[in-house]
C-alpha cells in the first residue's frame, strides 16, 4: 500500500478534505477563543485559517489535473465534474479571501494588546460562509465517483445512507486529529493552559466520533457487498476494517488519556507534563495507523488511485475482523462479553444519574466537585462498552445495523459522551459549592446526559424486539 499520492486524483482526495473538515474544527476553536477571550488562541486560529487558505492551491491544481484524467473515463459524468468544479472554484476563492483576512488581522494584532473585534468577526463570518459552500462542493464531489449512492433504495438490503454518512463522518476523527495535534503542539510550545485544555477536548471529541464512524463503516460494508456491487471487494473492505479496529483502539487510548488529564486538571489545578506527552504519543501513533486506515478505505471504491505495484487482498476470510466474527459467535466468548457490556451500562448510567441529579438540584449539601470525582467510573464504563459493544456487533452486524433502534442508540452514545465533557470543562459549574444551585445551562446539559444514556439503554434493549 502506498500512502504517498502517485496520481492527481489521489492527491486531490487526500488534500481536498482538509479545507472543509479543517474549517469545522478551526471554527470551533475560534469561537471558543472569542468566548474565553484568549489572545494566543485567537492568533493561533488566525494562523490556522491562513494555513488552510494555502491548501486551496494544491486542492485546485490536483482537482484540475484529476478532471483531465477522469474525463477519459466513460463511467464518470462530465456534468457532475463541471458542477463540482464551478462550486469548488467559488468556495476556494472565498477560502483564500478568509485566509488573507485572517493573515491581515494576525499581522495587525501581533504585538498590540487587543485585536480588533470587527476584524475578528469579519474572519468568523467569512469562514462560516466558506464552510457552507464547501459542504455543497463536498456533496457534489461524492456524486462524481460514488455511484452506489444513486442505487435504487428498493433493491438494497442495507440502506446506502450508511455509506453516505460514513463517507462524511470518517473525515471528522481523522482530519480532526490532524488539527487537534497541530493545535496541541502550538499549545505545548506556547505553554498556554486554555489551548492545552481545548486540544484535549478535541482529542476526546475525535475519539467519541470514532464510534459512529466505525459503526457506519460496518453498515457500509453490508450496503456495498450484499447485494454485490461490481468492482467492490469484500477482501479489500476487510483489510480496511482491520486497520479501522486498530484506529478505534488508538483513538480510545488517546481520548481516555486526554479526558483523564482534563479531569485531573479540575482537581489539581495543573497539568502533569508526563501525561500531556503520553497523550501526544498516543495521538501521533493513532494518526499513523489512521493514515493507513484511510488509505485502505480509499482503495475500496476508487480504482483511479490504485497503481500497478498495489497488491490488493483477495481472500474475504482473511484478517482479524473475519476471525473476530467467527470467534464472537461462539457462546463462550459472546456471553462473557455481553455480561461485561451490562456491567458497563450500570457504571455509565449510575455515574451519569448521580452527577446529573446533583446538577439538577438533588443533594445540594454535596458540592459539585465531590460528585465530579465519580466521573472516571462512568468514563471507564464507556470504554468497557465501546470495546465489548464492537465485539458483540461483529457477532451479527447485518441484523443489528438494520434494526430500527440501532441508529438512535449510536446517536445517543455520541451525544451523551460529548455532553459529559461539559462537566469537566464548565467553569461556573465547578465552583458550585455545598448548598448552591447549579447554573441553568448546566441543568440543561445534565438533562441531555440523562436522556441520552437512558436512550442508549432503551435503544440497545429493544434491538431484538422491534
Amino acid at each position, binding site marked *: 500500500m502506498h500512502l504517498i499520492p502517485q496520481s492527481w486524483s489521489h492527491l486531490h482526495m487526500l488534500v481536498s478534505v482538509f479545507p472543509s473538515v479543517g474549517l469545522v474544527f478551526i471554527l470551533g476553536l475560534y469561537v471558543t477563543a472569542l468566548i474565553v477571550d484568549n489572545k494566543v488562541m485567537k492568533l493561533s486560529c488566525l494562523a490556522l485559517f491562513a494555513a488552510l487558505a494555502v491548501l486551496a492551491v494544491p486542492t485546485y491544481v490536483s482537482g484540475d489535473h484529476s478532471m483531465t484524467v477522469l474525463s477519459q473515463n466513460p463511467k464518470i459524468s462530465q456534468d457532475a465534474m463541471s458542477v463540482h468544479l464551478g462550486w469548488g472554484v467559488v468556495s476556494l476563492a472565498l477560502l483564500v479571501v478568509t485566509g488573507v483576512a485572517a493573515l491581515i488581522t494576525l499581522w495587525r494584532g501581533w504585538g498590540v494588546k487587543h485585536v480588533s473585534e470587527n476584524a475578528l468577526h469579519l474572519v468568523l463570518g467569512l469562514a462560516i460562509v466558506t464552510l457552507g459552500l464547501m459542504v455543497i462542493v463536498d456533496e457534489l464531489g461524492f456524486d462524481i465517483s460514488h455511484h452506489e449512492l444513486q442505487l435504487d433504495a428498493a433493491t438494497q438490503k442495507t440502506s446506502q445512507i450508511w455509506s453516505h454518512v460514513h463517507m462524511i463522518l470518517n473525515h471528522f476523527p481523522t482530519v480532526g486529529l490532524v488539527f487537534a495535534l497541530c493545535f496541541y503542539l502550538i499549545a505545548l510550545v506556547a505553554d498556554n493552559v486554555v489551548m492545552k485544555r481545548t486540544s484535549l477536548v478535541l482529542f476526546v471529541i475525535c475519539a467519541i466520533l470514532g464510534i459512529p464512524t466505525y459503526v457506519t463503516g460496518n453498515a457500509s460494508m453490508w450496503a456495498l457487498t450484499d447485494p454485490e456491487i461490481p468492482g467492490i471487494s469484500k477482501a479489500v473492505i476487510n483489510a480496511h476494517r482491520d486497520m479501522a479496529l486498530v484506529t478505534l483502539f488508538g483513538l480510545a487510548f488517546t481520548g481516555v488519556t486526554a479526558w*483523564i488529564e482534563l*479531569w*485531573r486538571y479540575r*482537581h*489539581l*489545578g495543573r497539568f502533569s507534563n508526563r501525561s500531556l506527552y503520553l497523550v501526544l504519543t498516543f495521538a501521533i501513533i493513532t494518526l499513523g495507523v489512521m493514515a493507513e486506515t484511510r488509505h485502505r478505505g480509499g482503495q475500496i471504491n476508487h480504482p483511479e488511485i490504485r497503481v500497478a505495484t498495489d497488491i490488493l487482498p483477495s481472500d474475504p476470510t482473511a484478517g482479524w475482523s473475519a476471525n473476530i466474527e467467527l470467534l464472537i459467535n461462539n*457462546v*463462550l*466468548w459472546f*456471553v*462473557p*462479553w455481553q*455480561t*461485561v457490556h451490562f*456491567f458497563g451500562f450500570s*457504571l455509565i448510567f449510575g455515574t451519569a444519574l448521580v452527577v446529573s441529579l446533583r446538577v439538577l438540584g438533588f443533594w445540594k449539601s454535596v*458540592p*459539585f*466537585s465531590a460528585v465530579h*470525582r465519580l466521573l*472516571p*467510573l462512568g468514563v*471507564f*464504563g464507556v470504554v*468497557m462498552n465501546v470495546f465489548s459493544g464492537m465485539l458483540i456487533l461483529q457477532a451479527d452486524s447485518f441484523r443489528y445495523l438494520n434494526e430500527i433502534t440501532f441508529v438512535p442508540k449510536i446517536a445517543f452514545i455520541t451525544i451523551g459522551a460529548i455532553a459529559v465533557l461539559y462537566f469537566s470543562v464548565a467553569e461556573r459549574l*465547578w*465552583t458550585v*459549592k455545598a448548598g448552591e444551585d447549579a447554573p441553568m445551562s448546566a441543568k440543561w446539559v445534565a438533562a441531555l446526559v440523562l436522556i441520552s444514556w437512558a436512550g442508549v439503554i432503551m435503544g440497545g434493549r429493544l434491538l431484538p424486539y422491534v
Partner: protein
Amino acid sequence: MEIFLAVVVLAACVLGIVFGATYYLNRVVDENGRKP
C-alpha cells in the same frame, strides 16, 4: 460451567481494572488535590 467461569473471570478482570484505575485517580486527588 465453562461459561460461568468465563463470565466470572472476564467480569472480575475488567471491573478490577476499572475500579483500580478509578481508585488510583482519586487517590492522586486526595494526596494532591485543591479545594474548588
